[in-house]
């Protein structure tokens, strides 16, 4: 399966998962909203063009917005993490040739600690910005702090589960390619 096909399938699956399963979960608490759709952006290949990455993130966010009825609410944080992503990867990837042998960010390709840091930072930034926009529209400060913390924790849990369920190990790029 080529990287393009795999990512198209992921695009559709993450949107469907978010809209029809996670958004339907009965709310345990107002601070706890499970978000995992942005894992699509985290998992995109290393060698993707920076501008294309941002446009893709924008369209991806808008697709989710089409279902939730909030034009721009998810698109803005998606573009932000897409902008930060290359910078962060540049800082975190060991300066060896690992980038050549693996296609996309994973525990295997980056090492556990750098990859976790990468995911935690992007998740936090995403939720911080998302809740900030919500907070500017309505809400109070406690809501803001609580929701950023709660949502980030739940998302990280879900991402950890996803990583364990779907270990992406065999992503060697062959030398012929």
């Amino acid at each position, binding site marked *: 399966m080529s990287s393009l096909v795999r990512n198209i399938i992921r695009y559709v699956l993450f949107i469907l998962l978010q809209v029809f399963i996670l958004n339907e*979960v*009965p709310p345990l608490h107002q601070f706890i909203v499970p978000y995992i759709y942005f894992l699509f952006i985290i998992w995109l290949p290393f060698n993707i063009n920076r501008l294309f990455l941002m446009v893709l993130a924008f369209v991806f966010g808008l697709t989710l917005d*089409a279902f*939730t009825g*909030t*034009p721009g609410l998810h*698109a803005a944080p998606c573009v932000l993490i897409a902008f930060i992503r290359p910078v962060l990867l540049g800082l975190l990837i060991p300066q060896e040739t690992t980038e050549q042998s693996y296609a996309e960010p994973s525990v295997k390709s980056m090492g556990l600690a750098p990859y976790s840091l990468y995911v935690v930072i992007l998740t936090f930034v995403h939720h911080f910005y998302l809740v900030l926009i919500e907070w500017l529209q309505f*809400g109070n400060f406690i809501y803001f702090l609580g929701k950023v913390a709660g949502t980030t924790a739940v998302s990280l849990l879900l991402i950890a589960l996803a990583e364990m369920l779907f270990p992406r190990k065999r992503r060697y790029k062959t030398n012929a390619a």
Partner: protein
Amino acid sequence: MKNIFFFIRRYFGFLSFLLLQIAAIILLSNASKTHEAFFSAALNEATGDLNHRYSNLHSYFSLKETNRQLAEENARLRNMLAANFQAPDSSRKAVTDTTLRDTLGHYRKYTYLPARVIGNTVTLQTNFITLERGTLQGVKKGMAVIGPDGIVGVVVEASNNISRVMSLLHRNSKVSAMLKKDNYAGSIEWDGVNPYYLQLKNVSKSAKVNKGDTVLTSNYSANFPSHLMIGTVAAISADPSSNFYLIKVKTATNFFNLQYVNVIANARYAEQTALENTPSKNP
């Protein structure tokens, strides 16, 4: 000139980032205006189609509950049949004709249009419900929506076959309400905390409120008929800084298992809102 191109080339990534951010924020800040453009017919039909398929699957799980609600509603409506009441005076009119206007001058103000729910969220701060009934079937923007147990929301946009309803569980939702006991009016809003509870605001402290009192829609609403069930009072707190109570209302509608709702068309809606929105001539 060369420097400008150099600048643009150097900060190309950042500039395109800013551009996309601004696009997103503009979309969001004009949400009410862009809503119609954004959910233009094509997109609405597309998400509506997906929602419809999902809802087909989902509806099997709540068949029992839907059945119970419909049976209960039937029983309630049967009890309201004119035949159940003995009219003391023969001049009393017991049956309302279905024509728009009869010879006695009675006119039909509200029409109920049943619609199937094919999309619904409760966990977000801005929750919408999608209905499989659109402008071709008589749904218009601004119409009220009620479920079997109580009111549900207001139609905010409608395409040909699909319409989108702002649920009561939306941070910008506002419905005029009153206490059943002494008709004190207030407004029903949602604070985004718990999808089982709404907030009744602006009820004067001179009202006699008790826990368990019924809250109904008021006469002051252009889209909702009066005396429709909203919920029951769950907790009362007096706001010390104002002259109003802040009342927590348990919703009558269970937003988690909505299957069928009724859209209410008010024949005089356009006339009333047009008049209300005209600025008063007198200073």
